[in-house]
C-alpha cells in the first residue's frame, strides 16, 4: 500500500497497471486506509492486488524454436542450499473455516483442526523474482516462493502441526508474458493431508487471495493408533509444488516448488545420540543436503537477462542444462565423513539416471536409506547400478567421503549429457563434462566441523502391518486421439472415477496400456503410501500374456510414485485413513498430467455414502454404454 500512497499524482498510472475495470485509485485507498477491521484487511489485500504489477520487468519470450543455451563454465558456482523457512506469526491468524473476508480462498473447513491446532506458521509468497542459474548467465525471470528458487525449506516435527499460508502475488493480464498461469493450488507431496489442504488440481486460487494449507505433521493411522498415528508410517522428505490443472508443468518450470522436511525421534535433524535416533548425517544444509534436480533451457542474453525458454503447447521442449538447487554444474566442498543427500526430481518431465564417479572413472558406491520419503527396512548399496530418479521421486542417499583422499574430487554423473558450451577435458576417465551434474571436492574435516556419524544401522525401520485389501480396482493409462486418459477418460474435476471408504484398504492395479507408445508413466497417488505387491510386463502380441518381473530394492518398501513403463502392470495396496475428501491419481510427468492423465477419487465417511456414490458412477457408465465398475450395490 505504501508504494501506492507514495505514488502521488500517478492516479491514472495505477489504474492502467491494474488493467481491470473498477480498479483501485489513490483516493479510495486513502479513504479505506482510515477504516478498521475487515475493511482495512480487504484494503491491504486490494493494495497487494495492485502491487502484483510490481517486481521485475516481465520477460520477453525468445521465440518458438528451442535455443541452444549459452555456454557455462563448469563448477564455477558452489552448490546453494535452500535456507530453512522462518516460522512466522501469521496475521490474520489461521482459522478452521476459510477466512473469506480476510482474503482467503474458498475451501471446506480444516478437518481435525482442534486435534491438530497449528503451532508452527509459515508464509510462502508466490511472486516473480529474478534468479541466476550460473555466474556466467544473466538473471532469469522466475516465479518463486518468497523470492527464492528453490523455495525455502520448512523444517517440521511430527507432533507439531503446521500451517503454510500460500499467498498468490503472481502477475496477471498484460503483466504476465510467461506461459505460467497465475492461479495456484499447492500440493504437499505426499503428505497425509486432509483434502482441503491437499492442493487438489481444481482448487486453484487467483491473486490476491491466499490459502492456508493445514499439515497435521502426524503419521497415517490417527484413528487406529490414537495420538499422532502409527510411527511406522513415518515419512521425512516431502516437497511442495503447484498443482494447477493443465498448467502444473508451466508453473513448476517457472520455479514454484520447494522441499519440506519432517523430523521425528528416529530422524531428529541432528546427529547426537538421542533416544531412538538412527544417527544418520542430519544437520540440515551442513551434512544433510537437498539435491533438487531440474532441467532448463535458456534464451540468449537480451534485456539484461537470460530468460528460461518457455514451456509451450503440449510438450516441454526439454532442457539442455542440468540444474541442482538452482545452479548449473555446481561444486560442493565436503569433509571426509558421511553426508546425507535428499535427491528430489521436480520435473517437469526428465528422469535422472545418476551415479557417483571417482577420478579414475570407476563408480563409487552410494547407500540408499529412504525411497519417496520412507526409510527402507535395510539400506541398500548401489555400486554398479545407477540411481533412477523419475519425476517427483525422492531418494535419501548416504555418501561416505572418507572413502576418498583429501584433495580429490568425485562427480555425480547423469546418464544423458547436457550442453556445456565450453571445451573442458574429461574430469574423470570416460566421463565427458556434459554428463557431470555436480562435483564434490573432498577435504579433511576441520576440528570445528561435526565428527562423522556412526555406521549406518543395518535395520532402519520396522514396516507397518501388512495391508489386507477390502477390494480391488484397476487404473488403465492410455492415449487415444492424442489425448492421455485414465480408464478411458480425461481429467474432469467434477467427475469421480472411484470412491473408497475411510478406514478401508484396497489393492490397485496400474496398467500402462498405451498402444504403440514408448512412454513411461511415473504414477503418483496422493494421500497415503502404498506397498508394491508385484510387477508384470506384457510380453507378446496376445494382450493377456504377461511375465512377472522381480521387484527392485527400491520397490520393496513404501512408495508414492510408481514407475509404469510401457506394457507394465503394477499391483499395489494402500489404506485410506483419517480424512475424507477429493484426491488424485495421476502421471507425474507433468506434461502428461497437464494433458489430463489424471483422475479424481474420493474418500467417504460412511458405507451408505460409499454405496450411493458408487451407484452414481455405475449409472454414469451405463449411460455411456460401459459395464459396471462395482458389484453388490457398490459395496465391492
Amino acid at each position: 500500500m505504501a508504494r501506492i500512497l507514495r505514488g502521488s499524482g500517478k492516479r491514472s498510472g495505477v489504474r492502467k497497471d491494474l488493467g481491470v475495470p473498477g480498479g483501485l485509485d489513490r483516493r479510495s485507498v486513502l479513504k479505506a486506509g482510515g477504516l478498521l477491521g475487515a475493511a482495512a484487511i480487504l484494503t491491504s489485500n486490494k493494495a497487494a492486488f495492485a502491487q502484483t504489477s510490481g517486481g521485475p520487468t516481465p520477460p520477453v519470450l525468445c521465440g518458438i524454436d528451442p535455443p541452444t543455451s549459452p555456454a557455462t563454465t563448469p563448477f564455477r558456482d558452489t552448490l546453494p542450499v535452500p535456507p530453512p523457512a522462518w516460522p512466522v506469526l501469521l496475521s490474520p491468524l489461521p482459522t478452521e473455516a476459510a477466512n473469506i473476508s480476510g482474503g482467503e480462498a474458498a475451501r471446506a473447513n480444516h478437518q481435525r483442526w482442534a486435534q491438530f491446532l497449528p503451532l508452527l506458521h509459515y508464509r510462502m509468497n508466490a511472486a516473480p523474482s529474478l534468479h541466476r542459474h550460473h555466474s556466467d548467465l544473466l538473471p532469469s525471470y522466475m516465479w518463486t516462493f518468497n523470492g527464492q528458487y528453490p523455495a525455502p525449506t520448512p523444517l517440521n516435527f511430527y507432533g507439531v502441526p503446521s500451517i503454510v499460508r500460500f499467498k498468490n502475488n503472481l502477475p496477471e493480464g498484460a503483466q504476465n508474458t510467461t506461459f505460467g498461469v497465475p492461479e495456484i493450488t499447492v500440493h504437499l507431496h505426499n503428505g497425509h493431508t486432509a483434502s482441503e489442504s491437499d492442493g487438489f488440481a481444481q482448487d486453484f486460487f487467483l491473486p490476491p487471495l491466499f490459502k492456508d494449507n493445514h499439515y497435521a505433521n502426524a503419521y497415517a493411522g490417527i484413528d487406529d493408533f490414537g495420538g499422532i498415528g502409527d510411527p511406522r508410517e513415518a515419512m521425512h522428505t516431502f516437497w511442495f509444488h503447484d498443482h494447477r490443472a493443465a498448467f502444473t508443468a508451466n508453473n513448476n518450470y517457472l520455479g514454484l516448488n520447494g522441499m519440506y522436511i519432517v523430523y521425528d525421534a528416529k530422524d531428529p535433524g541432528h546427529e547426537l545420540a538421542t533416544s531412538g535416533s538412527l544417527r544418520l548425517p542430519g544437520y540440515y544444509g551442513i551434512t544433510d543436503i537437498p539435491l533438487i534436480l531440474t532441467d532448463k533451457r535458456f534464451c540468449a542474453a537480451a534485456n539484461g537477462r537470460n530468460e528460461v525458454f518457455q514451456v509451450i503447447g503440449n510438450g516441454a521442449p526439454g532442457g539442455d542444462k542440468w540444474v541442482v538447487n538452482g545452479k548449473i554444474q555446481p561444486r560442493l566442498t565436503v569433509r571426509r565423513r558421511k553426508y546425507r543427500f535428499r535427491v528430489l526430481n521436480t520435473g517437469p518431465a526428465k528422469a535422472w539416471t545418476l551415479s557417483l564417479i571417482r577420478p579414475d572413472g570407476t563408480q563409487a558406491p552410494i547407500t540408499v536409506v529412504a525411497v519417496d520419503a520412507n526409510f527402507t527396512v535395510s539400506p541398500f548399496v548401489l555400486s554398479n547400478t545407477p540411481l533412477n530418479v523419475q519425476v517427483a521421486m525422492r531418494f535419501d542417499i548416504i555418501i561416505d567421503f572418507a572413502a576418498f583422499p583429501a584433495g580429490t574430487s568425485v562427480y555425480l554423473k547423469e546418464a544423458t549429457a547436457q550442453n556445456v558450451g565450453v571445451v573442458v577435458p574429461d574430469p574423470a576417465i570416460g566421463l565427458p563434462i556434459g554428463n557431470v551434474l555436480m562435483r564434490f571436492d573432498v577435504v579433511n574435516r576441520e576440528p570445528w566441523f561435526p565428527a562423522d556419524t556412526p555406521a549406518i544401522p543395518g535395520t532402519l525401520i520396522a514396516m507397518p502391518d501388512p495391508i489386507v485389501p477390502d477390494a480391488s480396482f484397476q487404473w488403465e493409462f492410455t492415449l487415444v486421439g492424442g489425448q492421455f486418459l485414465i480408464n478411458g477418460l480425461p481429467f474432469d474435476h467434477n467427475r469421480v472415477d472411484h470412491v473408497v471408504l475411510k478406514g478401508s484398504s484396497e489393492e490397485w492395479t496400474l496398467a500402462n496400456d498405451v498402444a504403440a507408445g514408448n512412454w513411461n508413466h511415473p504414477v503418483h497417488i496422493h494421500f497415503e503410501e502404498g506397498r508394491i505387491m508385484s510387477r508384470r510386463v506384457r510380453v507378446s502380441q496376445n494382450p493377456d500374456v504377461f511375465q512377472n518381473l522381480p521387484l527392485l530394492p527400491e520397490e520393496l518398501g513404501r512408495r508414492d510414485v510408481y514407475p509404469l513403463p510401457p506394457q507394465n502392470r503394477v499391483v499395489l495396496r494402500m489404506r485410506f485413513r483419517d480424512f475424507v475428501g477429493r484426491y488424485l491419481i495421476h502421471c507425474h510427468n507433468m506434461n502428461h498430467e497437464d494433458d489430463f492423465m489424471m483422475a479424481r477419487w474420493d474418500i467417504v465417511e460412511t458405507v451408505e455414502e460409499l454405496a450411493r456414490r458408487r451407484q452414481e458412477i455405475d449409472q454414469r457408465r451405463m449411460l455411456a454404454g460401459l459395464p459396471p465398475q462395482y458389484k453388490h450395490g457398490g459395496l465391492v
Partner: protein
Amino acid sequence: MKRRELFVGTSGNTCVQGVRTCGTADLIPNVALRTHDDVPVRFYDDLVKGRQVVINMMYATCEGLCPAVTSRLVEVHRALAPRMGRDLFMYSITLKPNEDGPAALRAFADMHGALLPGWTFLTGDAFDIDTLRFALFRHNHIKFDLDPNFHAGQLRIINDSINRWVHVTPLASKATVLQHISWADPPKSYEQRMQDNRALQDEIGREVAKYGYRKVI
C-alpha cells in the same frame, strides 16, 4: 490501445520489450488462409490477435472423431452464443487442405449446423496448415505429431490479449470444455473475484452440510 501502437507492427523484428503481443505473434504463424466464405485472411493478424479463440483441426470427409467433435462444438457455441463473434471466436482448420476447399468446408459446416456467428472454417496451403498444426498442437513426439489424426481430438484455446494457452479434448464433458474456455477469460476485477470467492465458499458450505464433504464443486 494507444494510438501510437496502431502504427507499430507486432510481428517480425519490430518487437519491443514490454509489448506483450510480440511473443505470442512469434508463436502463432501468421499464415495466409481462406475462410469457408472464400475470404482471404491472415491467421494471426486477422483471426487471433487480441482475441480469445477456440481452435480445432478437422476435415470434411472425416468419419472418426470429427462429427462428434463438431457436434460438441455446436453445443459449446450454443452455451456461449452471446459472446460468439464478439469477444470469443471459433476456428476449425482442415487437415486436408487439398481436398477441402472453401465450398467443401461450407457444406460440412452447413451439414453439422455449424454455420454460426463467430465460427469460421479455414483452409489454405498444405505446408502452412502443417506449420500451424505443429505450432498449436504438437506433442513433441514424432510418432504422434506426424499422424494428423492425433490432432483431431484436441481443442486449443488461446486468449492472445492475456497470453493464455489452454488445451482440452472436445470429447470431455460439455461442462469441462466450457470451463477450459473460461480459463482463458480475461482477468476479473478485484471486486468480481472476491464476490466469486464468497459465492464459492457458500456453495462449499452447502455441499459439506449435505454430503459431509465437497462432492460436486
